[in-house]
Structure formats: C-alpha cells, structure tokens
C-alpha cells in the first residue's frame, strides 16, 4: 500500500501529493513540458483556439437558457427575447457569433503554420490527424449552430447541405429524409441539430482537444527551423541553471507568459469586433424567419466554408460532389502525401515553397469566388481555381519526392 503520512494536514500540499500525485502531474503537464525557444507568435495559435473555445462554451451556456428549439418560437427567442429582453443577451449572442467566425480564421492560420513549417512529419502525424478531426468537428458544430436561429439562411443552408447526402445520382432520398426526420427541414430537424450543437458535438470536441494535446506531448512542438531537438538533454541544461545555452523553455510559466501576451492582443481585436463590428458575423438574410416557400436570391455559406463550397459549384452534380468530398478529406492525408523527409520551413524546400503559396492564394481565390454570384467570368475563375486545388494535391507526392535534403535535416 502507498504511504500516507498520518501527520499531513488535510488539503496541504503533501496531503494532496500523496493522494493525487499533484507534483508529478504539474511537471508532466506544465513545468517540465519543454517548448523550443526558436519559435514565433504563430506558435500561440493553439492556446488562442483553446481560449476561444472556452468563450464559445461560456457564451453558449447563457444563450441556452433562453433559446427555444421550436420551429415556431426559435426565431423570436433569439431575435426578440435574447437580443431585446434578456439583460446583456446581445453580448452573449455577439460574442458567440463573432467567436464562431474568428475561430475558423485562427484554425486556418494554425493549419497553414503547420503546413509551412512541416509540423505534420516524423512523429507528428497524429497531431495533424487529430487536428483535422477537430477541424471537421468544429465545422459540424458551426453548421449545426447556424441552424438554430431558424432564419432564411438557416433553413436553406440546412436544405442544401442535407441534400448533399443524397449523393448525386445515387438518389439516396431516404437517407436525406432520415437525417432530417422529415421531407424537408422541420421540427425534427431543428430538435436534432439543437442536440448536436449543445451536447454531442461539444463533447466530441472536448475529447478531441484532449487527444490533440496528448499527441503533442511526446514529439513536442516543432520550431522555426525544423531542428530536431534532444529535449531531455536541453531540459537538463535548463534545470542545471544553464538557461541561456538551453534550447528549450518550460511551458509554464515561461512559454505561457508569451502565449498570454499574444492572447491579449488577440482578445483586444476580438472584443473590438464584438462591440463595434459584430455585423460581419451576422448575415442580414438570416434576420428573416425561415420560409420553406421562398429561396433567398443567393445562398452562400459563412466565409469559412466558401472555399470548399466553391469546389462543389463549377462541376456537374456528381463530379461536384466527388470534388467536394475530395476537398473535405484530402488534408487528412498530408503527412503521407508529402514524401520528403525534410522538416523545414517551406521557403527552404524548393518546389514545396511554390506549392504552399499557390495553395494559400488558391484557397483565398476560391473563398472570394464562393461569395460572388455564379455567372460569367466568376464561373471561369472558380473552375480554374477548383482544378488548381485538385492538381496541387495530385502533384504534391511527386514534387516532394524530388526534393533535395535540406541542410541539417536527416
């Protein structure tokens, strides 16, 4: 049996350590979790995402107290009760809406940082894959949340997206009706998406966040040069007092203080948006109640889904669905499609440098084209951009296979 000191005062440090191993926990999770020195502000995005998720959870709890998941009452419970009657209800709604939008901006920055610095390779594959699972879960969470105000855009986005599950010429209308619980989005649909949004998806997201942190613990975070650091050796130097020579710092309190600094700047911008420019996250079309007999003149998703929506649009129904499915899953395979062993920033990696920047520009072009009406020159640009996206992934294994080893990497 473990040893319990009979003289330890209840809830004293010793008493807790004997029962919970708080010292070991603290070392493993924070004070002896080592972070390289050679990083920049982009390494703070993970904590910013965790904090934004916290904001979504908190503001969501307050919204949940007055929201009514009933097709007849939902619209008013949001636009009348929460926005007009509940004290500071507008604050929770604007915080929730703005955070839901900016969280995707940070996710994209976080993903592109990972791609640029090669932080998905050699031992870090599971970090990438669990991160992609988080991306998909956040997408489902955002979509299900978008249904809840039961406005025109909620209804028609729900109609269009659930129709995707008929899988084109397979005509699986039974599956679509099963997902909706009705022939069209109705009460059954609103009820189940409400459940997904407030319970099941948040649970999945929280479990995945734990997994994502877990996958990071052994390989540690990457650094600006992709240098392979002997964390044990460098940690010894730090602990021996050679803090200048050591290439690492402890997560807590040293790295965390930098994280908090970047987070502070982020929150200044975030709250500026919440108080002065929340309207960018509030589509005016969704301030009309859902009307099953009237399609809005132009249906488009929120900005963060536009690039993949645009990959669906220029093709015929079946080809469009295949291209859309491709766009949804292809990022998962990045660690295996990149055949080069180089862990280095893209600008030192030959053709991959161009691949990366073309990908970034292409996704921005797709995003813009997804927003404008589908006609004339826009259709052409959209088609070219969609093909560019597909071709980029097709050539990736070849250009990375030809890549020469970068100095310093094995």
């Amino acid at each position: 049996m473990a040893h319990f000191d009979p003289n330890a005062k209840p809830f004293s440090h010793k008493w807790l350590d004997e029962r919970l191993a708080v010292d070991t926990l603290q070392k493993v999770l924070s004070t002896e979790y080592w972070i390289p020195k050679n990083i920049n502000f982009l390494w703070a995005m993970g904590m910013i995402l965790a904090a934004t998720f916290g904001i979504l959870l908190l503001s969501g709890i307050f919204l949940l107290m007055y929201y009514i998941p009933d097709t007849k009452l939902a619209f008013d419970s949001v636009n009348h009760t929460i926005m007009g009657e509940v004290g500071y209800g507008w604050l929770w709604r604007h915080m929730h809406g703005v955070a839901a939008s900016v969280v995707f901006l940070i996710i994209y920055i976080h993903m592109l940082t990972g791609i640029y610095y090669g932080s998905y390779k050699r031992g870090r594959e599971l970090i990438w894959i669990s991160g992609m699972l988080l991306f998909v879960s956040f997408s489902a969470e955002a979509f299900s949340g978008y249904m809840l105000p039961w406005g025109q855009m909620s209804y028609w986005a729900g109609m269009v997206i659930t129709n995707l599950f008929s899988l084109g010429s397979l005509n699986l209308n039974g599956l679509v009706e099963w997902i909706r619980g009705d022939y069209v989005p109705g009460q059954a649909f609103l009820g189940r998406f409400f459940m997904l949004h407030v319970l099941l998806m948040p649970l999945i997201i929280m479990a995945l966040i734990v997994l994502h942190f877990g996958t990071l613990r052994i390989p540690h975070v990457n650094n600006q040069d992709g240098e392979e650091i002997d964390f044990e050796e460098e940690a010894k130097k730090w602990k021996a007092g050679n803090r200048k020579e050591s290439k690492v710092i402890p997560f807590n309190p040293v790295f965390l203080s930098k994280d908090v600094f970047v987070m502070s700047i982020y929150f200044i911008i975030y709250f500026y948006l919440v108080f002065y420019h929340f309207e960018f996250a509030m589509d005016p079309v969704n301030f009309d109640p859902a009307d099953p007999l009237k399609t809005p003149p132009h249906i488009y998703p929120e900005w963060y889904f536009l690039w993949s929506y645009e990959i669906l649009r220029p093709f015929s129904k079946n080809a469009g669905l295949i291209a859309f499915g491709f766009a949804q899953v292809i990022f998962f395979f990045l660690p295996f499609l990149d055949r080069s062993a180089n862990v280095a920033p893209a600008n030192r990696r030959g053709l991959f440098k161009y691949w990366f920047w073309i990908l970034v520009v292409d996704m921005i072009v797709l995003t813009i084209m997804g927003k404008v009406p589908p006609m004339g020159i826009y259709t052409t640009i959209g088609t070219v951009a969609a093909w560019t996206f597909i071709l980029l992934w097709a050539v990736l294994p070849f250009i990375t296979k030809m890549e020469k080893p970068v100095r310093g990497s094995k």
Partner: protein
Amino acid sequence: MSDRRDFFGKALGAFAGLGALGALYAAKRTWDPLPSVKAAGFTTLDLSGLSENKLYVDKWRGKPILIIKVAKNSKPNEAPNGNNKNAYEDPRLISVGGHKYMIVIGLCTHLGCIPDYFSDKHKFICPCHGGQFNAAGEVLKAPPPSPLVIPPFKITGNKVVLGEEGPEYKKLKESGLVA
C-alpha cells in the same frame, strides 16, 4: 481455468454486442421521420381559373409545388444545352379539363433551392447555382442532372390531389417521366 475465463469473456462480449446492436437500432428508429409526419400530406389543387404562363405556388409535405398553365407557345428564349423545344409539346405536362399544366415539386434537382420563373423568357433560373428549366420542368442548363420532379397526383374533374397515385401518374411513371 482459462477455458472458463474465455467462456465468460465471450459470453459477456456476446451479450454486450447484442445490447449494442439493439441500442443502435433503437437510435436509428428514433431518427426516423415520425408516423404523423409521414401520414400528413395530401394537397388538393384547384386548377380552374388559372391564367396562362403564370407561376402559382402551393405546398405539399412541406415542399413547394410549382404550377403553370402552359401557353401554346412556350419556347424558352435560349437553352444553353440545346434543348429549346416548345414546352407545350412536352409529355410531362398534365392535361386537366382541356388545358395543359406543369405540376412539379419546386426544388431544384441539384441541391434543392427553389427556381424562379421568368415568364417572358419561358424558363426557370435557379438562384443558387444557375441551373435552368423550361416551362415543363426540363433542364436547359446544368448543374441540375434531371428535370423537376412530378409529385404523385390523381385527377378528379378540375382538381388534382397530390399524394395519391392516379392512372395518369402511373402512366408517366412507367414511361420514366416523373423525375
């Protein structure tokens, strides 16, 4: 000894597996459309007194129903896919009381948006992805892969009941013209 443990392990696994399957089935059934949702759903359309080449909208099982009394000359102004025949000659039209009507579910067969009717051009244009249909619901421009769907109907005098399969509907269905 280990035989006995194996047996208990397998028995436990089998029972737990059965329970899991049962729970999955119950979960699936919980997500099914409710009987009340499925049972509701007959709409009667009165076609007397409709004007030609004008769009009328009704509702059946929560879906919009588009009705046009098709004029004798309903050629679309242009058809990007070359299908520019006169919609009045289309076999998908439903004859009621000596007039021809287009009665379709008003959801684009691409992704389910409601197409808008432009009576001067004799065609529908979908606001979402730019698909086009003529006044009989036939495709004039992709992405929609198939014509607008004709709901099950039964003709009684000047009225049409949606949700019931009359002889005219069965004939169309046999010829593969309903969707």
